[in-house]
């Protein structure tokens, strides 16, 4: 690997050739406190970590485990409202905790770089990609502008961005999310840093796009021999990327081991429970009569392009139909059409034997009551100023006319149904965990005593363990209440866990619909195959094998590189 020849010679303190094996980052007894209500509470409670040059460390754990906080602390940075209260972070001989701001600033961008979860939120929308990519280099005076731009184009090419010569002159909103994430990786790479911290770089992306980004990141980290900390909550992803894996929980290290060893032989119970999540599965049951029929529906926003094109979907009573597809495939639009938020241009929706009025305002409360919806982000689906009591109580009052003691009794019943208790009644959403918030959303839907619940990516914002609990809860509720689900998701593991039937959508059209076992077994239509093969698996060789296979048949790759 002679790429080092191209690195700028002015790299401060790089100390000549980089050799794999020296310790680059040494974190000892790191403690970080976070402030809320003017009280400091520990977030990270003494974590040790050491990283050698050229090594990739995967950090996994549920949200709130302190992953991102540790990632930032590796740069000697604490978010506002956080402080490093103990321990040391030694980067190449310099303790970043006690170093001056000036010293730390010199390192950041040039020797330590950071790739954030949402590239869309991290780029300045008012500037083109190129000036943002090379900003750190120019600031440090490592290269002239012309050289830096040439190098950036080279990086874009290596990251397999389309039109590497021109893409730098686009604005962030003119490229796709996956491309933007790669551009951000290029930005991190420009100074050829010793260490890059990736904070969930692919979490916001579709599986099909994720594969591209993962492959690009892995290649470039290997090519430039960069050490990396890769933070994620997705085990399968970390298995592809990391040499070693560290499992965190509640600000403490649970376990650390080389990737293959960790995957084949996890030691701690907590780690094992993380592994077991993916094994949840539901017996497929054949459907009975249809509760919902979407017949030849076509819909569009404004008079623009059709988002749904002649879509036909049937949901049997008391069963779960999963709608899968990447973002932009029209999954969520389908939900909006069914709920009446977006009246269709053509086609009709039959619910429980009757044709539904197209628009929301024409539907009577009883129809509204029977179709409920659960959202992807429980944070935005619950009004932050309403207590649990108000959130669950309102549909009871609105649809069923319950008040006073009757209402309260029913609320407590519902809370019990979702495995929560009256201690939560007065909580505001901000005082609940993500999983609890989603439970409250489920209770709100159940309060209306619906026949159909539309679940829009309800588990994708949650950690894997919480995901499993929510899915189990939904399955149990279906058994007990015989409610039907239309389950929108892009996660095949979730589909396996919950569905009876599957609808595969691509660019506003239904590619395939059928019972789970049939859709998930070969032969697949080409798009279904691409989608299924893009779902990361726990096997650490999965990405390499997949890329090798796709290279052999490049047609499938191009179909989705939009």
């Amino acid at each position, binding site marked *: 690997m002679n790429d080092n020849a191209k690195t700028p010679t002015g790299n401060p303190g790089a100390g000549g050739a980089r050799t794999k094996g020296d310790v680059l980052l040494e974190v000892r007894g790191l403690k970080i406190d976070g402030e809320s209500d003017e009280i400091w*509470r520990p*977030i990270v409670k003494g974590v040790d970590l050491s990283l050698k040059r050229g090594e990739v460390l995967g950090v996994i754990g*549920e949200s709130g485990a302190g992953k991102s906080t540790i990632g930032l602390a590796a740069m000697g940075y604490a978010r506002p409202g956080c402080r490093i209260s103990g321990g040391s972070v030694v980067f190449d001989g310099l303790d970043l905790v006690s170093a001056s701001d000036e010293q730390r600033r010199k390192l950041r961008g040039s020797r330590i770089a950071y790739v954030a979860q949402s590239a869309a939120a991290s780029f300045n929308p008012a500037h083109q990609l190129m000036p943002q990519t090379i900003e750190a280099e120019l600031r440090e005076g490592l290269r002239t502008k012309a050289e830096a731009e040439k190098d950036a184009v080279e990086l874009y090419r290596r990251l397999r961005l389309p039109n590497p010569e021109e893409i730098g002159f686009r604005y962030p909103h003119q490229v796709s999310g996956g491309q933007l994430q790669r551009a951000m990786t290029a930005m991190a790479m420009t100074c050829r840093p010793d260490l890059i911290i990736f904070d969930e770089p692919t979490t916001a992306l579709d599986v099909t796009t994720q594969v591209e980004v993962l492959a690009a990141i892995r290649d470039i980290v290997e090519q430039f021999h960069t050490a990396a900390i890769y933070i994620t909550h997705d085990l399968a992803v970390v298995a592809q990327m990391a040499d070693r894996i560290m499992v965190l929980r509640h*600000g403490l290290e649970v376990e650390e081991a080389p990737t293959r060893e960790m995957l084949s032989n996890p030691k701690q119970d907590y780690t094992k429970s993380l592994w077991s999540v993916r094994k949840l599965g539901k017996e497929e049951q054949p459907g009975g009569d249809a509760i919902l029929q979407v017949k030849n529906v076509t819909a569009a926003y404004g008079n623009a392009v059709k988002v749904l094109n002649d879509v036909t979907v049937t949901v049997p009573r008391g069963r779960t139909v999963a709608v899968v597809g990447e973002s932009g495939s029209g999954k969520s639009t389908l939900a909006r059409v069914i709920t009446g938020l977006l009246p269709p241009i053509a086609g009709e929706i039959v619910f429980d034997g009757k044709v539904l009025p197209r628009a929301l305002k024409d539907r009577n409360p009883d129809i509204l009551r029977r179709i409920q919806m659960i*959202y992807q982000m429980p944070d935005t689906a619950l009004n932050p100023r309403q207590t649990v009591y108000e959130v669950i109580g309102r549909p009871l009052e*609105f649809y069923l006319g319950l008040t006073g003691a009757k209402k309260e009794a029913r609320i407590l019943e519902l809370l019990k149904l979702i495995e929560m208790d009256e201690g939560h009644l*007065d909580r505001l959403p901000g005082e609940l*965990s993500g999983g609890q918030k989603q439970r409250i959303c489920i209770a709100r839907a159940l309060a209306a005593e619906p026949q159909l619940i539309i679940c829009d990516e309800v588990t994708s914002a949650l950690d894997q363990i919480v995901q499993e609990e929510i899915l189990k809860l939904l399955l149990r509720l279906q058994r007990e209440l015989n409610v039907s689900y239309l389950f929108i998701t892009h996660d095949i593991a979730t589909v396996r866990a919950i569905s009876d039937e599957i609808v595969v959508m691509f660019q506003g059209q239904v590619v395939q619909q059928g019972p789970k076992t049939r859709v998930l077994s070969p032969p697949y239509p080409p798009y279904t195959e691409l989608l299924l093969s893009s779902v990361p698996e726990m096997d650490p060789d999965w990405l390499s094998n997949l890329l090798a296979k796709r290279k052999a048949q490049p047609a499938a790759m191009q179909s989705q590189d939009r």
Partner: protein
Amino acid sequence: MTDSAHIPPQGSLVAAQAPSRRRGKASRLWRDLRKAPASAWFGLIVIAVYVFTSIFAPLLAPYSETELVGGAFDPWGGQFLLGTDQLGRDMLSRLIYGARNTVGIAFLTTMLSFVLGGALGLMAAISGGWIDQMLSRTVDVLMSIPQLIFALVLLSILGPSVLNLIVIMAVLDATRVFRLSRSVAQGVVVMDYVEAARLRGEKLPWIMRREILPNIMPPLVAEFGLRFCFVFLTISALSFLGLGIQPPTADWGSMVRDNAALITYGDITPLLPAGAIALLTVSVNFVVDWFLHKTSGLRE
């Protein structure tokens, strides 16, 4: 397995502190008040004194606000604690009644402008489409005319009665409230919980009052404090120009104008009503600052 295992540490501590059922709003308010900085306390006390004075003005004032009780421009001390004005009315009594008139009118005007501007702003944000366009363009037109001059013109056409003053000022001020509430509400309208309320079949007033209003209160309250000060100053300015609150009603703005000549002789009496205006303005801003700091969640 229950979810409680996944509450982050701060969550469990909150749970431990929270009283079991139905936390009272009063206790929460008292807790916030105890933590309030000195400036906020100062502001609150001053505002309380003003409110007290304006409510109990007839009991506090030694004389009536209109009665001629002494000679023109009597000095301080003796029978008249703060002397008399150009007609021989007691200055202290007029100051006390002025609190009632000026502050009362300013408060009513601000309230009215917030009810009007806030309701229309929320409606525009929720409904969108042609309703939004129509309201917004109307507001643009109103705002394109300088406010003080517009008010002067309207007052001279309609006559400077207290009712006209309140309505005209409220409508002109509502334009700014409209813009603010519309723009902050637009950020809330797109949230899933508003969509959830719509899907439930909730009507416009419920969505406005229960789903959106509580979430946009902080900027609106801050704006209320500022707008109150501006309305207050504008009314004083109008009175100073002779089109605001009409004599013989005591008003701080016109009191400054009527006694301004005294400044030339080194008498600070005309500065008293001006000082009263300034003190209230500063106090309101102190309180608003504290409220903003408390609700914005900004650190450092």
